[in-house]
């Protein structure tokens, strides 16, 4: 119990529960299976990238280029499937392959030049995105193939609401779950996952990790290619959700994703963060955004409220940590 109260995740979970109660009290439509599944579907895009960001943050890095990676992967994928045909497997393969390559470029730059990861990724964000705009001319792609459209509407199971409209667990959510499970397995049960926490936990001086026999370059290659992988998947998922490919529709969402992950307890200093926390962070922001409309809060207030929730949650957790760190001395009774 004591350990549970020390965990950041507990606080985010409580915030999610509290928010759910408040929103439901004001609008009972919130706590329905249909709305729940809709939220799951619509936040799977950010959720997938959040998993990649989590892995980067654990390793002690910060990446903001992932939105550009997702955009490039998505755009090239869309060009190929509209111009030549293909199928959903090909679509994912193209986007993921591009994600892996661009991730590798990030990893190489970070390792060989030993530049702070955030600086590298600011640079690559602009290069990747800039080149895409140069070569695409910023053209939007509106008309994606029918099979692409159909795949987006696939449901794992289907229910019907009171108006007889079908809803259910979207295939897109299933893809997100797949990414979650993959990351969870890697983080919990592999030596690679352990190495990741170790590299992130030793801060700026990677000496301790090296002395433990960890190959830092290999860890970094994994981290940034995994980020690239999730970005590629997310790119396709976003196209599935929106059915329009616009080069400027993903870039700009970096901070939303990073905020969700940090909200979930990952540390920008590295070494800390869990899948559960990240999911809770994503849910908290999604429910918040969803709930504000359902609670009929005027849109002018959205940014203010979301900012306040992030600040409250992060500072509550920091306060808890500080309380623990304060040296306590067993003072002799008089």
């Amino acid at each position, binding site marked *: 119990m004591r350990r549970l109260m020390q965990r950041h995740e507990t606080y985010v979970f409580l915030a999610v529960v509290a928010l759910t109660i408040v929103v439901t009290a004001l609008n009972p439509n919130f706590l329905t299976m249909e709305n729940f599944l809709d939220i799951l579907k619509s936040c799977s895009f950010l959720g997938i990238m959040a998993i990649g960001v989590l892995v980067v943050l654990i390793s002690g890095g910060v990446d903001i280029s992932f939105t550009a990676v997702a955009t490039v992967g998505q755009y090239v994928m869309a060009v190929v499937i509209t111009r030549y045909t293909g199928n959903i497997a090909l679509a994912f393969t193209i986007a993921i392959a591009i994600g892996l390559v661009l991730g590798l470029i990030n990893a190489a730059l970070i390792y060989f030049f030993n530049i702070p990861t955030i600086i590298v990724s600011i640079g690559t964000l602009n290069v990747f995105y800039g080149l895409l705009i140069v070569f695409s001319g910023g053209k939007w792609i509106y008309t994606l193939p029918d099979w692409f459209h159909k795949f987006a509407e696939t449901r794992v199971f289907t229910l019907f609401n009171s108006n007889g409209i079908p809803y259910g667990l979207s295939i897109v959510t299933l893809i997100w779950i797949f990414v979650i499970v993959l990351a969870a397995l890697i983080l919990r049960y*592999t030596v690679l996952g352990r190495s990741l926490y170790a590299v992130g936990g030793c801060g700026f001086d990677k*000496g301790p990790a090296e002395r433990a026999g960890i190959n830092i370059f290999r860890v970094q290659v994994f981290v940034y290619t995994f980020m690239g992988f999730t970005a590629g998947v997310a790119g396709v998922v976003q196209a599935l959700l929106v059915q329009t490919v616009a080069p400027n529709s993903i870039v700009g969402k970096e901070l939303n994703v990073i905020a969700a992950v940090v909200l979930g307890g990952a540390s920008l200093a590295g070494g*800390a963060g869990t899948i559960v926390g990240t999911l809770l962070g994503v849910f908290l922001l999604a429910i918040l955004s969803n709930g504000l409309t359902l609670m009929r809060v005027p849109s002018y207030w959205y940014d203010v409220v979301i900012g306040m929730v992030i600040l409250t949650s992060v500072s509550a957790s920091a306060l808890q940590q500080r309380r623990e760190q304060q040296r306590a001395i067993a003072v002799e009774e008089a």
Partner: protein
Amino acid sequence: MSNLFLSMQNVSKRYTGVQALDQVDFEIRRGEVHCLAGENGSGKSTLIKIISGVVQPDDGSRIVVEDREITHQTSIESMRLGIEVIYQDLSLFPNMTVSQNIALNEIIENKSRLVVKKHEAEIAQAAMDRVGVDLPLKELVGDLSMGDQQLVAICRALTSDVRLLIMDEPTTALTRKEIQGLFRVVAELKSQGIASMFISHKLGEIFEIAERVTVLRDGKKVGTYPSSDLDDAKLSYLMTGQTVEYTPYDYERIEQQPLLEVRNLSKKNNFADVSFTLAPGEILGITGLLGSGRTELALSLFGMNRPDSGAVYLNGDRLPLASVGKSVRAGIGYVPENRLVQGLVMPQSVGRNIAVTTIRKLLAKLGFIDKDLYHENVAEWIDRLSVMVPSAQSPVQTLSGGNQQRVVLAKWMATAPKVLILDGPTVGIDVAAKSAIHTIIRDLAKSGVGVIIISDEVAEVHGTCNRALVMNRGRIKAEFAMASVSAHELQDAVQQVSA
């Protein structure tokens, strides 16, 4: 099979322009507890790096491990030979659990790809069982005390077939009780034939456990001695080549009015009911073991740790104790325990570090810094405290520990404090530099400043102060005038109140 685990002959190492090691012979017996002593720059760390394969010795050096001559050893090879080094930073991962930390090396060494939690716990438990320690496997290492972290580092070394365990300054951050725990483990290792080697420049506890002490000075070996033949004074002579004597501080009360008066100061979970006075020109020692509340008390006096009740008066005026800025303006200076973290901005120049506390006095019109005044000021302090530095522009991180400490002192002396609190003023600096700093402190006190020294080195307190308070569990337990007590008696008193 000889009784030697490691024997080195004629080992030299020359870095560009510096003879770090000069024809050193060195040996460690199986299961021996050996101490390697020397000042900073004496060649200790170079010797360790050669033993652990991190650097290669120059030609003509000969190293024999387990009766086999070693050429071109790498660090991996040295680990295979059973040589493990625990560096001062312990190289632990504070964000991971005890069992994850202990098992990590073993798992990576085995080239496994998957981690089985049960297996991990077994590795960790086995290592702990070997030396009879019991730590909570699921606890995060960052949440453990320094002493327990040290034990985790030792257990991790034990997961491989270790024959020689090298520990760099293992006792500096430990409480007395934790040191005892560490020594029990070392004794246990010895009974299993595992040799231990301590690297230290701190005299004291090491004697209790080391069988032999090898002393290095300026890259040369001074000699290897049974520890029973050495005492503090002799060892410090061997390390520095000069005799350092602590002459008692001849304080004469000039003023009857106290400069600083502390009345019934209390803070929950920190200290309780602390009262004392400090006269101008006094050097008051506050000693006690790690965790006795002495550092917390110092922070409170400086305004960094607001007390719950009680009051502090400076020249009869009540101090607010609410913020550092207010305390500095009132005339209180504080040199923290860990000068690296709290006292200096390491990448910045010596000049800037010195000037930071007095920046307001250096302002010309319009609020710009008066360059000439700044340079004059900085030069004066560098000269006054004889800081050895190529130029005032050199970054502080390039200086030796002793010189860094002088920069911190300069920084605070520049504010012309009425009371200066020094927390562990000579921790981590060598004997010669220590006595220079003591002289600076005494000169300062003679000019009428009240000085409080917080330290767990009883010898230091006895040698510098005129009066000392002994703290334990947050309370002041005893007070001594240094003139009427020997260093030994003071040491005993500290042990007694802490028992």
